[in-house]
């Protein structure tokens, strides 16, 4: 119940703060502090399966060389909806589409370790 309430409020907040314009315009809406949180999530929580530096673990490596050639839209959908019958979970309950788009961009550029 609490969780549902949280998710709802969360999505509402996102709906209110986001304007559904172009991908580029949306990305600008992510505040620097939220960007920090997203990078933290990428390293720590995606990292619990993909490795702390995304070098691979239970899930495949997600370094720029591994991802280059994969369409950003596909990557975004995989992250939002997960991959059925594998351990890759859907992140839609936790991240907004535009946060995921921003994450994909960061992953394609590569994380700088020690960040």
């Amino acid at each position, binding site marked *: 119940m609490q969780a549902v309430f949280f998710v709802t409020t969360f999505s509402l907040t996102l709906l209110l703060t986001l304007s559904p314009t172009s991908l580029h315009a949306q990305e600008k809406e992510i505040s620097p502090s939220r960007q920090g949180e997203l990078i933290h999530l990428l390293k*720590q*929580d995606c*990292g*619990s*399966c993909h*490795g*702390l*530096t995304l*070098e*691979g*673990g*239970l899930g495949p490596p997600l370094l720029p060389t591994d991802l280059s050639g994969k369409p950003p839209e596909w990557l975004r959908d995989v992250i939002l909806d*997960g991959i059925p*019958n594998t*351990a890759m*979970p*859907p*992140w839609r*309950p*936790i991240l907004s589409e535009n946060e995921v788009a921003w994450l994909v961009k960061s992953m394609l550029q590569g994380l700088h370790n020690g960040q």
Partner: protein
Amino acid sequence: MANKHRFRFTLGVLLASIVITGITGCSQLDVTDLRGTGDMGIVIERAAGNALVVETSHHTQLFRVEGLGNLSHASVVFSRDERYAYVFGRDGGLSKVDILRGRLVKRVVQGGNSIGGAISQDGRLIAVSNYKPGGVKIFDAETLVMLADIPAVYGHDGERSKVVGLVDAPGQRFVFSLWDAGETWVVDIRDPTNPQIRKFRDIGKFPYDGLITPDGRYYIAGLFGEDGLALLDLWNLDAGVKRILGGYGRGEQALPVYKMPHLEGWAAAGDLLFVPAVGRHEVLVIEQKTWQEVGRIAMHGQPVFVMARPDSRQIWVNFAFPNNDTVQVIDVPSQRIIKTLKPGPAVLHMEFTPRGEQIWISVRDKDLIAIYDTETLRQVKTLPADKPSGIFFTSRAHEIGL
């Protein structure tokens, strides 16, 4: 009179010190510095790649050992003399740390991507399980020289599986499971250069971890790809792997799993076994006599570690993201939650002191270790640590499967 006495006394002490210095010479053995390691342990600083050597009697950090590589998901086993810690890092590094001196003794990079390790019954061999290339390697515990390489090959195309749930078992054996292949292998390493492997196929989809009962008899692999657990009686291998708790979540939609649960240690209390339900906010209670589910405890989130206090009176549980700021304590006799604690964001691991009067909890995003009294359930102390993850005390040295 008094003066004369004091003079004699001083002279005596002086002579005694000269004699002692003479005997010990430069071996640095000062009796006051001698100590055992039974109350010591290791805390992993995940991001920095350090191991803190700690001591639980006075809650102190003794050393910080640096340069152990990428330690996300690091685990540790101890030599049976409780002097050396073997640290298994994510980057395939195997490091041997002298905890008395607080020094890295040796380090080899043995694989591309490792996840765990174990020490043999006789303490002479170290096994490391790897994701990539999938398999297990056996090392001499003294020298870290590799003695055997066991690729986790399955199917027909020579594919290699990620290896999980590696434990030691009586009879100089190691047992582990193959994530991709759904197999459990029992390896006899009495002749370490010629391991004898017995494979059990079709144990279930995606085993994510394994544990062994403290008596060393049963190996249990938890399944991620389907409900249930795979049970192997090591006293009777011919009976094969038996599925238990198949369909514990029948008809219910599992939640997305943001962190794999662990089956580290055996949350057994008397005849009961407590395990995390995958994709559910529940701890399952299994009766060991019948291997049937006898209860479920609704929890705050998806359990990651479900650990019994050494006296088995309580079970402590931490949770997966996004509920990982919380720890809950289950009272075993009533099977009820008696306390919900909020140590802080990203509780990654917990470790009881040898007899369980306290528990150390790593709180990654607060950069500290929180120490609780397990009777009052109150925090007694915190220690600073840089993004701490695993906590491992030397009492593990004498427990089968740890």
